[in-house]
C-alpha cells in the first residue's frame, strides 16, 4: 500500500535485464535490486486516497487531516517524511472506521488542479467514462 510495488518491480526488472545483458549474465539479482531501489526516484508528488466507510465514496486526505471528495483539496505531498506521517494518520482513520482502502497515488498538478497519473485513479476521481452515468430517461 505504501509503495507502488508494481512500479518498482517493473522498473527494476527492466534495469536488471539490461545490466545482465551488458555484463554477459554474471550478476546477482538481489544486490542489483537493492541498488536499483535506492536509485529509483519515488514517484512524486503524491496524495492519499480512500473510500469512506459509510457510503463507499472516493475521498482524499486534506492537509487538515479530514477526508474530502474534492481532489483539488487533497494535500499534495512531495517529501518522504511528510508522506510517512500522513500515511500513519490515514491508517489511524482506518482503525477508527472512517475510511477503507487507503492508497498513496501519484499525481501531477497543473493550474491548481490535481490529476492522478493512472487512468484507474482518474476514473475514481472524475467518475465513470461511460456515456451518461445519470442517464436521463429518454423516450
Amino acid at each position, binding site marked *: 500500500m505504501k509503495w507502488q510495488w508494481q512500479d518498482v518491480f517493473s522498473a527494476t526488472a527492466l534495469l536488471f535485464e539490461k545490466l545482465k545483458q551488458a555484463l554477459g549474465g554474471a550478476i546477482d539479482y538481489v544486490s542489483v535490486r537493492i541498488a536499483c531501489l535506492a536509485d529509483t526516484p519515488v514517484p512524486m508528488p503524491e496524495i492519499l486516497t480512500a473510500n469512506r466507510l459509510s*457510503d*463507499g465514496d472516493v475521498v482524499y486526505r486534506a492537509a487538515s487531516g479530514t477526508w474530502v471528495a474534492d481532489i483539488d483539496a487533497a494535500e499534495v505531498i512531495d517529501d518522504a517524511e511528510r508522506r510517512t506521517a500522513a500515511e500513519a494518520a490515514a491508517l489511524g482513520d482506518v482503525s477508527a472506521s472512517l475510511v477503507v482502502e487507503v492508497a498513496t497515488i501519484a499525481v501531477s498538478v497543473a493550474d491548481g488542479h490535481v490529476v492522478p497519473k*493512472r*487512468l484507474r485513479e482518474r476514473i475514481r476521481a472524475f467518475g465513470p467514462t461511460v456515456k451518461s*452515468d445519470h*442517464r436521463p430517461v429518454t423516450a
Partner: protein
Amino acid sequence: MYRYDEFDATFVRQRVSQFADQVERRLKGEITEDEFKPLRLMNGVYLQLHAYMLRVAIPYGTLSSTQMRRLAHIARVYDKGYGHFTTRQNIQFNWPALKDVPSILSELAEVEMHAIQTSGNCIRNVTADHFAGAAFDEADDPRPYAEILRQWSSLHPEFSFLPRKFKIAVTGAGHDRAAIRLHDIGLEVKRGKDGGIGFAVYVGGGQGRTPMIARELAAFVPEADILAYVDAILRVYNLFGRRDNKYKARIKILVHETGIDELRQLVEDEFRQIRGGVLGLPAEEVARIRAYFEPPTLTTRSGTSATLEAARAENPALDRFARQNLHRHKAQGHTSLTISLKPIGGIPGDASAEQMEAVADIAERWAFSEIRVSHEQNLILPHLALDDVPAVYEALAAAGLATANAGAITDIIACPGLDYCALANARSIPLASQLSERFGAPERQDEIGPLSIKISGCINACGHHHVGHIGILGVDRKGEEFYQISLGGNPDESASIGQIIGPGFSAEGVIDAVETVVDAYIKLRASPDETFLAAYRRLGEAPFKEALYGA
C-alpha cells in the same frame, strides 16, 4: 411462479436483521474491516472503485412485475436511478451506501428477494435458459430442477466453504442458451426412452484465466438420482479439488488433471454409496416444486396473427423488431419477446428505474407479470400472444426499449470494466458503446447477421470474452489500456473457446480492428447465409490474421 416457502422467508428475514446489526457495529467501529469484509460479501456487498456494489440474486433469471417494480424503487431511492443486469442473470446496483444496505435488503425481502449466494466460495445462484418453460424446443422446463438444486445447495454446510466458487446452469433444450458447458456443472434436461425425465451431466467448464469446455460425465441420470449424483460430484471435488492455489481450485482443473474417466469413476463410487438415501428425489417432491412453475393458461390461438402481420406490413421498424426479437413459443400464436438492454451506443445491461417500471407494467398488462433476465444482459417476456406484439412494441418504444437487435452484432455483452470494477485492467463499456455505434445502422447489422461481441476488462472473464464469436479482453500494457482480440468462441452446444488472433490493439485501434475482421468475414463468406462462426470454422484464423496484420 415459485414462491418462497416459510423456511426461506424466515431465513431471509433473520439474515437481514443479522446483517443490519453487523453493519451497525461496523459503522460504530466495533468490528474491523477484516472482520466485516467476509460478512458483507456473504450478503452481496462488494467495494468497487467509486462505491459499494450490491449484487441481488435473481434465481434462474425469473422475476415478477412486483419484484421488478421493487428493483426500480431501490434504483431510484438508494442508487442513481438505474440498475445493471449481469451475465449471471442477476442485477447489480453500483452506488448504494453501506449504511443503506440493510434497508435495501429488507425491502428486497418483502418481495422474496435477497443477495445470498451471490459471492464467496459457495454454490452460486443457479442459472437457466431464459426461454425456460416457453421455448418450442425444450424437453421440459429446467427451472424446477434449478430450484431443487438451489434449495439443496442453499447454505449447505458441507458446501459453504468449497475450494472455490461453484456455478451450475440448467437447460431444458438441446440448443443450449444457458452456456451449460461453461459452468462447473451443466445439466441438460432430457427425455428417456420411456418419456421419463433425466439429465445429461457436464462437468468442468469455466471461463476466467483458464477457460475450458465442460466434458460429459453422464449421458443420462434419471430424475430421481440427480441430487445424489450432483452431490457425489461436489463431494469428490471437495475432497480432491486443489486448495493450494486459487487459480487451480476450480473443478475444471480437477477434471483436467485427473482426467474425465478417472473422475467419472470417483463420482460413480461416491454416487453408489449415497444413491437412494436422503438425497433421493421423490416424484411427489418434484411435483410439488413443478407446481410453482406451471405455465400461465394461454388462450388457444391460431399459428399466425393477422393483427401482427398487418402491423408489420405497415411499420418497417416493427417488422424489423419482430424479425429480430421474437423467439418461437411452445404454444402456437404465442412468442417470447426479447427486450434489448443494448440501445445503440448505450451501456449493455443498464436499465433506468423508469424503464424497469415500464417493463413491469407491460409484463403485467400483456404477459402474465412474468419477466426473465438473460445472460446476454437483456430482459425477456416469455409468454406473449403474437396479437399483442404491436401494442407491446409501441409501449416499449415509448420507454426507449424497442431496440431491434437481439442476437445481432450490437447485442454486445460487456462487464463493468475499469469504469467501475476494482479488479479491471481496462474499460469495457465505452468500447461496447463505440462498437455499437460503429455497427449500429440497421442495414449494416442486417448485412452482418448473427454475430456476438463479448468484452471483459480483465482475465476474470465476467464479460464472457472467451465465448464471443469476437471476444475482446482488456489488459494493462505499461499502464495503458490494451485489447486482445480472440475469434471463434461460442457458448452453445457446439461450444468452443476463442483463439487469440495476434498482438493486441490500443483503445483507439481496437474498434477499427473489429471492423476489419467483420469486413473480412463479409468478403470471405460462402453466402450471406453463412454466419460469422460458420465461416470462421470453415476458414480458420489465417485469412482473418492476414486481414488484421498483413501477410
